[in-house]
């Protein structure tokens, strides 16, 4: 046996005690849902994990009502310091139960344990820790003194980073004094429900956090609910568009974190080995189920062949398989449906004349898998260069000059993220300036931090999550709008800003 094959090193599942079935978490308690329960399966084995309750409109009502009560009676009246302490508690509980959460995440989502263990769950704890500290410092958010929370936040999150997206949503909302009703994605409810247990352990007042499970219509009922003050959604651009339409004309504040088709630009003077790692991390991290994935590689023509050659060599060392094996680099595709979409778009890529290369790796018999794939000879007009594939598929395009790179990078309705690889500092700054993307990684890719605002331009959504901007999205200024400066006094306006 080759050393490189490495003997299996599975993370133990003993730490995780899943129940047979999970109810909805409303008003501090688990309760039955009124819809038909559905199964959550492991995408790596297609094995049944647990039965999940399905919230219907009446359950959404109940959850929103619980959140409203908790907002009116306790949470909005509580001191920021105490809210912060609850969030610190949650952060610590997440750390204490981190391995359990990581195992659950990998089991339910299909992502490699090394990612759930080293990226997702540590960031979840960091997110709560960061926003916990904001709770009693809201005067400094930038909205003037004593900004007010919005009320009840309806939050709908995707399946690619189930627990992390929950943290991105819940931590700032609670720190700002809002209560929440959160709906995890249908295929990845488990860690949200484990989080509900953490909420109980933290002794959070009932109704401050409500978690309702279900499919698209549950989410639609939630964001469309009349007693919701804030809608936060992460997911596809098409659903985001529908939500933006549905809140039109209402007073609901909206933040959307949607799709992307990020350009990862590699110049000929790039630190080449790190660039290769960055390309790999950019598109194969989390099986490419990343809205900010570097799915369009823009490589300078002069080094195209070398980069592709090195990339293929590197991809050949990636290990695809059991998400719970500590040595797995590429886990399972989250669902049969997503796998179908990846296959379909890849076939389109081939049909359009792009050259397909797939890393040689053994695909397990059960479960949903897609081997790391790159397409070369891709043109900007190809669908695989324009549409979000949301899978481990890289489209490679070339450019000749920095201006061409920028033009091609920006030639998309999306604008979430971008990468730049070059040793030339001034070029990094100039290119970063010109890229129409909310997050630009220079000589790195796919880095996240609770203090760092994240979000898109154009059809990648609006609003930012993370940092000061992230909490501002859950607050409003409490000062009345400053009156127009006196029309008769001929002097400079001294103060007009309310923010």
């Amino acid at each position, binding site marked *: 046996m080759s050393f490189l094959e*490495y003997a299996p*090193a599975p993370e133990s599942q003993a730490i995780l005690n899943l129940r047979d079935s999970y109810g909805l978490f409303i008003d501090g308690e688990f309760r039955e849902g009124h819809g038909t329960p559905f199964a959550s399966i492991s995408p790596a084995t297609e094995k049944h994990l647990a039965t999940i309750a399905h919230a219907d409109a009446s359950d959404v009502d109940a959850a929103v009502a619980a959140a409203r009560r908790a907002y009116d009676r306790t949470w909005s009246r509580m001191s920021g310091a105490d809210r912060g302490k609850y969030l610190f508690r949650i952060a610590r509980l997440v750390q204490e139960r981190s391995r359990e959460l990581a195992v659950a995440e990998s089991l339910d989502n299909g992502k490699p344990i090394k990612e759930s263990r080293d990226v997702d769950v540590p960031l979840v704890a960091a997110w709560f820790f960061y926003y916990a500290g904001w709770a009693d410092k809201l005067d400094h958010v930038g909205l003037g003194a004593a900004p007010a929370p919005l009320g009840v936040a309806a939050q709908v999150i995707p399946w690619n980073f189930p627990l992390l997206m929950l943290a991105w949503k819940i931590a700032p909302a609670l720190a700002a004094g809002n209560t929440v009703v959160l709906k995890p994605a249908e295929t990845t409810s488990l860690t949200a429900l484990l989080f509900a247990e953490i909420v109980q352990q933290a002794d959070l007042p009932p109704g401050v956090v409500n978690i309702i499970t279900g499919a698209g219509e549950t989410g639609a009922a939630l964001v469309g609910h009349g007693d919701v003050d804030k809608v936060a959604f992460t997911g596809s651009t098409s659903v985001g568009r529908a939500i933006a339409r549905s809140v039109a004309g209402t007073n609901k504040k909206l933040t959307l974190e949607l799709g992307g088709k990020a350009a990862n630009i590699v110049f000929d*003077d790039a630190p080449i*080995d*790190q660039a290769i790692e960055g390309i790999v991390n950019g598109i194969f991290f989390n099986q490419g189920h990343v809205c900010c994935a570097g799915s369009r590689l823009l490589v300078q023509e002069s080094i195209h062949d070398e980069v592709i050659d090195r990339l293929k060599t590197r991809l050949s060392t990636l290990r695809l398989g059991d998400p719970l094996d500590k040595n797995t680099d590429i886990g399972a595709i989250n669902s049969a449906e997503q796998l179908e979409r990846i296959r379909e778009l890849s076939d389109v890529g081939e049909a359009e004349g792009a050259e397909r290369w797939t890393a040689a790796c053994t695909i397990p018999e059960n479960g949903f898998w897609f081997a790391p794939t790159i397409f070369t000879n891709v043109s900007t007009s190809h669908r695989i260069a324009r549409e979000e594939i949301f899978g481990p598929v890289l489209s490679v395009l070339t450019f000749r000059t920095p201006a061409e790179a920028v033009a091609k990078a920006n030639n998309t309705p999306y604008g979430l993220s971008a990468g730049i690889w070059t040793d030339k500092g001034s070029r990094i700054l100039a290119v970063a300036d010109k890229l129409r993307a909310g997050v630009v990684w220079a000589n790195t890719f796919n880095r996240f931090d609770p203090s760092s605002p994240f979000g898109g331009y154009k059809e990648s959504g609006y609003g930012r999550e993370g940092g000061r901007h992230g909490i501002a999205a859950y607050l409003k200024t409490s000062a009345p709008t400053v009156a127009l400066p006196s029309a008769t006094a001929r002097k400079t306006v001294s103060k007009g800003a309310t923010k």
Partner: protein
Amino acid sequence: MTGTQIVPGERAIALLGGEANDANLRRYLHGIPGVDAVGLEQRAAGLGTRSIKTTSKAWALDRIIGLIDLTTLEGADTPGKVRSLVAKAVTPDASDPTCPRVAAVCVYGDMVPHAVQALGTAHGDPDQGKIAVAAVATAFPSGRSSRSIKLEDTADAVAAGADEIDMVIDRGAFLSGRYGQVYDEIVAVKEACRRADGTYAHLKVILETGELNTYDNVRRASWLGILAGGDFIKTSTGKVAPAATLPVTLLMLEVVRDWHRLSGEKVGVKPAGGIRASKDAIKYLVTVAETVGEEWLTPHLFRFGASSLLNDVLLQRQKMTTGHYSGPDYVTID
């Protein structure tokens, strides 16, 4: 241009498009893509998270032993100490005859005759199960002496039976940009490795990465060492901190990989100093396997310069054999 007289090496000339003088070397070495420190360290850390279990671990532990240059480089070294070292090299674990031998013993030049004598019939090519004698030379560890003394140092050790010479580069010359001088010296030392029968002792070129300080320097020095004819590039003397680190070793392996892509030639890598635990050594094996490939995990292409590492590997080995944890009194002190 310093006017340094450089002995031209064919492969260097071909690559540089001219003689290996300061200007040509500078143009070439500074034209190599840079290294992003953060990315390099992250990649190394990622490789370090590989979890090596059961059969893979057993294989790895044995292989580590077989790749060790068991080293003593003390001012206080004596023939007795060297004999003790050799005995350990030949029989690392007296309680287990299946335990493999180390690749080489590494000593100061004046200790070479004692090592050769102590090894007796065990002396030879590690690829054939024998143990080589490596000598540090060229005014190790500082390298601060005249060229003639360095060459004599080398020739002495080779004449005394050293199979491998671990030379140090002139870091001062390198850092001041006198690449031609560094190149020239490596070429000269290589020539001093020539035995009477026309064969050469293997040359390991110690970069002393702790003094080169930056990853860009390490990468350039690695290329320089290879261009000048080094058979191995080696991280450190062990006398300067930091000695071997995983990122530095990864970087040197990347150069070796690129050289192989370019020339088809295989150059060895030797991290030395500071690798004391089996767990760390396994990370190096993983890094070698995933960067240049498993075929590099042989004594003529990869070594650990270490002393205390061997005992830790033996403890781990005993744990795997017996199923319970061992203790320091169950391995020998040399």
